C-alpha cells in the first residue's frame, strides 16, 4: 500500500515524465513543420494548433453542408433535365465534402454529434456567402463561377497544409471542385448568348455575387490577427489579401469571355504591380452577415436543424436494426 508521501512522489514523477514527453513531442512537431512534413493525428501537437484546426476544419465542413441549401433550392426548377442532373451531382459533391471534412476534424478528438450540435444551435460559424439568397436561375451560374471559384482559390494551397488528414481531404475536394466552377461558368455563358432578358439576368446576378465572393477570403490582412500564427503553423499558406488578388486577376479575363461587367468602378490593370487594382469592399456588410444578420442566416440554420431532427428516427432505426441483426447472428452462432 502506498503512503501519502509515495503517492505524491509518484505524481511528481508522472508529471516530470509527461513534461519530458511533451518537450520531445514539441521538438518533433517543430521539426515536422520546419521540414514541410505532415503532422498526423497520433503526433504530439500544441493545444492551440489542435483547437485552431478543429475550428477551421469544422467551419469548413459546416460551409459545405450549409452550402447545399442555396443550390438545392433550384434543383427542381432547373431549366432542363441535364441541368437538374448536373446540379444534383454538384450538391451531392458538397455533401461529400462536408463528410470528408467532418472526418478530418474528428481525428483531432471532436465528435461529430458535437459539431452537428454547434451548427444547428447557431454556435458554429460557416462561410457567410451562403447566407445570401438565390432568387434567379443565373445565381446557379454565379455561385459556380464566383463562389466555387473563390473556394478553389482558397483550397488549392490547403492541399499542402501541415495537418495530414486535412490535406488529404482537401486533395479529394479540389479534384471534385473543378467541375463546379466550369458548370457555373457555362450556365452564365449560355445566358449571355441568349435573349436580352437572359443577358440581363446573368449580369444582375453577377452584380450581386461579385463583392460577397471577394469577401470569402476574409478581412484584409491588417484586420486578421490570427493569420500570422496560422501561417507559421502551415495551416494557412497565403494571406487573405494575396488570395483575393489572385482571384481578381483570374476573374477579369473570364468576365471578358463571358461578356459580363464586374461591378467595380475601380477595377483596372496596374502595370507597375502586374495585378488588377480593385475597389474597397464593404466590410461592415461582411461583419453584419457574419454576426447573423444576413439575408438568410436564420433560414439556413433552421433548415439544417429541421433536417437533422427529422432524420433522427432514421439514424436510430438503422442503428437498432443493425444491433438486432448482430444479436440474431450471435444467437445463431451460440
Amino acid at each position, binding site marked *: 500500500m502506498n503512503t501519502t508521501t509515495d503517492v505524491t512522489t509518484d505524481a511528481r514523477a508522472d508529471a516530470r515524465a509527461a513534461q519530458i514527453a511533451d518537450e520531445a513531442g514539441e521538438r518533433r512537431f517543430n521539426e515536422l513543420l520546419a521540414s514541410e512534413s505532415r503532422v498526423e493525428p497520433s503526433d504530439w501537437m500544441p493545444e492551440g494548433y489542435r483547437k485552431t484546426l478543429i475550428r477551421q476544419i469544422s467551419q469548413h465542413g459546416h460551409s459545405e453542408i450549409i452550402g447545399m441549401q442555396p443550390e438545392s433550392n433550384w434543383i427542381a426548377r432547373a431549366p432542363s433535365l441535364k441541368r437538374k442532373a448536373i446540379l444534383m451531382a454538384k450538391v451531392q459533391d458538397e455533401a461529400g465534402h462536408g463528410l*470528408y471534412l467532418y*472526418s478530418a476534424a*474528428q481525428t483531432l478528438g471532436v465528435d*461529430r454529434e458535437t459539431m452537428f450540435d454547434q451548427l444547428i444551435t447557431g454556435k458554429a460559424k460557416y462561410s457567410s456567402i451562403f447566407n445570401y439568397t438565390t432568387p434567379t436561375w443565373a445565381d446557379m451560374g454565379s455561385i459556380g463561377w464566383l463562389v466555387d471559384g473563390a473556394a478553389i482559390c482558397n483550397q488549392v494551397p490547403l492541399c499542402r497544409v501541415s495537418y495530414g488528414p486535412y490535406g488529404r481531404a482537401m486533395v479529394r475536394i479540389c479534384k*471534385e471542385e473543378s467541375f463546379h466552377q466550369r458548370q457555373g461558368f457555362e450556365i452564365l455563358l449560355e445566358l449571355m448568348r441568349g435573349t436580352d432578358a437572359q443577358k440581363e439576368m446573368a449580369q444582375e446576378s453577377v452584380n450581386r455575387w461579385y463583392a460577397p465572393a471577394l469577401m470569402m477570403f476574409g478581412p484584409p490582412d491588417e484586420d486578421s490577427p490570427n493569420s500570422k500564427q496560422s501561417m507559421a503553423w502551415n495551416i494557412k499558406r497565403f494571406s487573405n489579401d494575396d488570395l483575393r488578388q489572385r482571384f481578381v486577376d483570374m476573374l477579369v479575363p473570364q468576365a471578358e469571355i463571358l461578356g459580363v461587367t464586374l461591378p467595380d468602378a475601380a477595377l483596372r490593370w496596374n502595370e507597375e504591380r502586374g495585378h488588377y487594382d480593385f475597389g474597397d469592399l464593404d466590410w461592415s456588410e461582411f461583419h453584419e452577415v457574419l454576426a447573423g444578420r444576413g439575408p438568410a442566416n436564420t433560414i439556413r440554420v433552421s433548415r439544417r436543424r429541421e433536417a437533422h431532427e427529422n432524420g433522427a428516427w432514421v*439514424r436510430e432505426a*438503422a*442503428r437498432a436494426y*443493425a444491433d438486432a441483426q448482430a444479436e440474431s447472428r450471435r444467437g445463431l452462432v451460440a
Partner: protein
Amino acid sequence: MTSPGDSGMRETWPLWEVFVRASRGLSHVHAGSLHAPDEIMAVRNARDLYTRRAEGVSVWVVRAAAITASDPDAKDSFFESPQGKEYRHATYYTESDAVPHL
C-alpha cells in the same frame, strides 16, 4: 495499441474505414472513413461517398475499432530495425553498376 479515429459509443453510428480498388490488378487503397449502422450500409455509403466518378471497382469497409495500429509513442524503436541496413537495397551494391542487365 490504438484504433485510429474511433470515438467509441459517443456516435449514433460506428466509424468505418474505407478501402477502394481503382481497377483490377491493383491493391485496395485507403480512401477515407464514414459512419454507418452496419456493414451493408457502410458498403453502400462508401460507394456513394468515394466512387461517384468511377474511382473504384471494389470497396472494402472495416470497422475503425477493429483496426490495430502500432503504438504511436513507440515509433522510433518500433521502426528501428531497417535503419543502417542499406544492404537490403539494390543501390547499396555499386561495384556492379556498370555490369549490364544486373
